[in-house]
């Protein structure tokens, strides 16, 4: 590896959140002019580690060194002072500020600001790193890719020597991704040390020199990129031959049963938000006993589609029909009354944390427990207890929902959604952030619903999940459907291309 002394070194770094061990005695070095990929599954501890490096999370045990000197970051300000920059997945920009104002925030240089001077300074820096940004433009008017470059510029302006990028390509279009890789190379040439947090193997192979793999908070491997393979990294990352839930092999109906009324029909659906098209003419059918998966890079209209199909958002145009009957009033109640079980994208928005588990389980069906406005609390509790048992929720009916783990919260939502044998299940990111056991449980339950004869719409960023569970796969790109495949017809590569809005393989290569 590199001979030089490391820029930053972590030794035995441990971080706990309550009972959860997020980082377990991690020792890792970062060198100048090197791109290091931090690889791991959801919940492996990558984010925590990066937040430690940036002073947003304090270390419980262990030590950090910058240029050989022991340091202790108490806030991002400390990290910045030591030359660490951070570009999070969620941009932290002020939309009402200009590019220049965003970039100089926190390091203005003088008490009084001269707009022209600032903009020249920022413009020069942007040019030097080939970022192509207009300093006077309002950040709120920029595209996602441009906003990311503003973030990078911000970090560079802080004279950062170590730049951490959290899932940098998750929200980028292929064009923006190519451009982003170009920026990375410029950074490297200028001697900046780069850390990329990712779970995409292709990206790791394409742009990093070294890979560190995290699993369950532990560092399980360090490799020089050109000496390793995707297969080895994948094995390190997963570390197990997982007993995964897979849809039962069955002969997918070769021809769609056109005469049968679909349980859910979506026709030419449109929705736009402040002039931006979010859903642009989506149409599909969902039949009984079928799992239809919707794949796509986050931010291509899946969230809005789920919001429409759960009654949280009224579309601008188009038809949604349940068992042939058109939906006129887009409210959660309409969908509830028509037998739609709903799993929201963000599970913590599907529960009221300060209410009890029983109340959260049954708020959707209070009418069955109400007589003349009076609520039968005892019956409510009894019913909650049976649901808790049936779904193996580790909680008592009167516990506050917010004290539960993510997996148990998801089980509450699942129990609620499936309680009344729904005809259609809308499942958005049902296993995001869950551990292996909870993931398998949730996926099993969804397949059970399809076996029972319900139609399941599975919207997920996890391509594996889509591939394993779906009978039919639709790909969403920029608000429209860019592909439709039967199970077995598509593999990850084909879907990946469609997700990037490409049909031809040669157009979508990752620049090396």
């Amino acid at each position, binding site marked *: 590896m590199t001979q030089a002394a490391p820029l930053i070194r972590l030794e035995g770094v441990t971080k706990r959140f*309550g009972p959860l061990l997020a980082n377990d005695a991690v020792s890792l070095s970062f060198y100048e002019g090197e791109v290091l990929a931090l690889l791991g599954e959801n919940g492996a501890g990558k984010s925590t580690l990066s937040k430690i490096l940036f002073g947003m999370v304090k270390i419980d045990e262990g030590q950090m060194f910058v240029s050989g000197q022991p340091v202790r970051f108490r806030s991002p300000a400390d990290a910045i002072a030591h030359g660490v920059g951070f570009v999070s997945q969620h941009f932290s920009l002020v939309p009402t500020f200009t590019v220049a104002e965003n970039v100089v925030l926190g390091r203005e240089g003088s008490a009084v600001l001269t707009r022209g001077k600032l903009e020249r300074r920022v413009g020069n820096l942007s040019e030097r790193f080939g970022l192509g940004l207009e300093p006077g433009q309002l950040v709120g008017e920029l595209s996602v890719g441009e906003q990311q470059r503003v973030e990078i510029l911000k970090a560079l302006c802080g004279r950062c020597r170590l730049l951490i990028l959290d899932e940098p390509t998750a929200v980028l279009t292929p064009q923006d991704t190519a451009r982003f890789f170009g920026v990375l190379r410029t950074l490297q040439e200028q001697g900046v040390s780069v850390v990329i947090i990712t779970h995409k193997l292709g990206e790791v192979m394409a742009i990093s020199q070294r890979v560190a793999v995290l699993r369950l908070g532990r560092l399980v491997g360090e490799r020089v990129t050109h000496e390793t393979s995707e297969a080895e990294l994948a094995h390190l990352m997963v570390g197990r031959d997982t007993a995964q839930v897979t849809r039962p092999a069955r002969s997918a109906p070769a021809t769609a049963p056109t005469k049968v009324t679909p349980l859910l029909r979506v026709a030419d659906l449109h929705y736009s938000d402040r002039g931006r098209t979010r859903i642009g003419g989506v149409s599909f059918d969902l039949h009984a006993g079928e799992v239809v998966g919707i794949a796509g890079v986050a931010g291509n209209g899946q969230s809005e589609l789920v919001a429409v199909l*759960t009654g*949280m958002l009224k579309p601008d145009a188009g038809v949604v029909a349940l068992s042939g009957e058109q939906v006129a009033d887009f*409210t*959660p*109640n309409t969908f*509830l009354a028509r037998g739609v079980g*709903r799993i*929201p994208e963000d599970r913590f*928005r*599907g*529960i*009221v*944390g*300060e*209410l009890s588990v029983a*109340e*959260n389980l049954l*708020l*959707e069906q*209070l*009418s069955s*427990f*109400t007589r003349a*406005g*009076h*609520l039968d*609390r005892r019956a409510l509790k009894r019913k909650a207890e049976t649901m808790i048992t049936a779904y193996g929720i580790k909680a008592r009916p009167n516990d*506050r929902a917010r*004290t539960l783990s993510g997996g148990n919260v998801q089980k509450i939502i699942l129990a*609620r959604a499936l309680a009344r044998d729904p005809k259609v299940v809308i499942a958005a990111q049902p296993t995001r952030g869950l551990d292996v056991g909870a993931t398998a449980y949730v996926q099993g339950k969804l397949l059970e619903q399809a076996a029972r004869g319900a139609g399941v719409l599975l919207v997920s960023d996890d391509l594996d999940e889509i591939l394993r569970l779906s009978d039919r796969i639709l790909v969403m790109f920029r608000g429209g459907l860019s592909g439709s495949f039967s199970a077995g017809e598509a593999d990850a590569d084909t879907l990946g291309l469609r997700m990037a809005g490409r049909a031809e393989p040669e157009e979508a290569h990752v620049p090396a």
Partner: protein
Amino acid sequence: MFRLERAPAPLWQRALVPVLAVLVTFILVSLVILGTGVDPLAVFREVLFEPLTSRSDRLEVLVQATPLLLTGVAVAVAFRGGYYNIGAEGQLYTGALAAALVGPRLGGVPAALSVAVMLAAGFFGGALWALTPALLKIRLKVDEVVTTLLLNSVMLFLISALLNGPWRDPVSGWPRSPAIAASAQFPGIIPRSRVHLGLLVALLAVALLGWVLRRTRFGLELRAVGLGADAARFMGVRVRRVVLISALVSGGVAGLAGVGEVAGVHTYLIGELSPGYGYTGIIVATFGGLSAPGILISGLFLALIDTGTLSASRTLGVPVYLGDVLEATLLLVTLAFLLLNRYRLRWAVKRPVG
């Protein structure tokens, strides 16, 4: 030593919060009193115990408590739904205005009917004054705090205009409304005291609040909206409807407090009808933890402070505004101590490090 863990507080600890809050409040306010050269303990004895020693003072506490319980319930209904109605003061005056408009016209109407009409008018008036901010909130997402607050001043100006204009007594020049009919006056409910029917109305309102919050579907939906409006909507709660109803009920109940002061105490409307009962209602509701039993206790407690400071001002010469200082401090201290409910206090043996 004691340790704080981030976990929901057990019940015994929650019960401790108001006790601690009162204690700290009195310690803080002692400093203010010490500055005046009076013995704080003597003042507190006068404020907290003196009113309880004589029958007339005890009953006077109940008279004071009547509007406070009502505004406390009014504020709690709205706050529970996450709707920060700061307009109870204006809504109280609207209720009083409605009572003052209807009251004089009820001569010859049977007393029971008159009283019912007065209550209905006051409730309707208060709810009407609460309607605009509520609609602006649910239709246009306009912050209700600013609108309800501003409407308080508007109502005070309106009443002032009436009192100084058409209602000014042509003979004496007193700025007050025409007296309400005898049949519209609230009957006393305890002989030889000023305690009036309004107290029963207030107690009924407190009881209803408790029942609604704990035993009804609307109560559960209201709490769900207040604690997480988005999630509640996802679960099929009609959020706008719940907010609208709670805002109107809140205004209506505050209006009842105004009716009580007009029909049970003064028999006419004056500009100084309320020394800020609407704002004190916020303290009553907050100190009472937005729950019915809590509001009952805190309403009576604040009424005791009001009555007690009055007697302390007579006997010890402490300015009567001590009550305002006490109540405001209590509000801020209570708010701070409520943070403790997020933590669990634990007795932990200190272990050697390493």
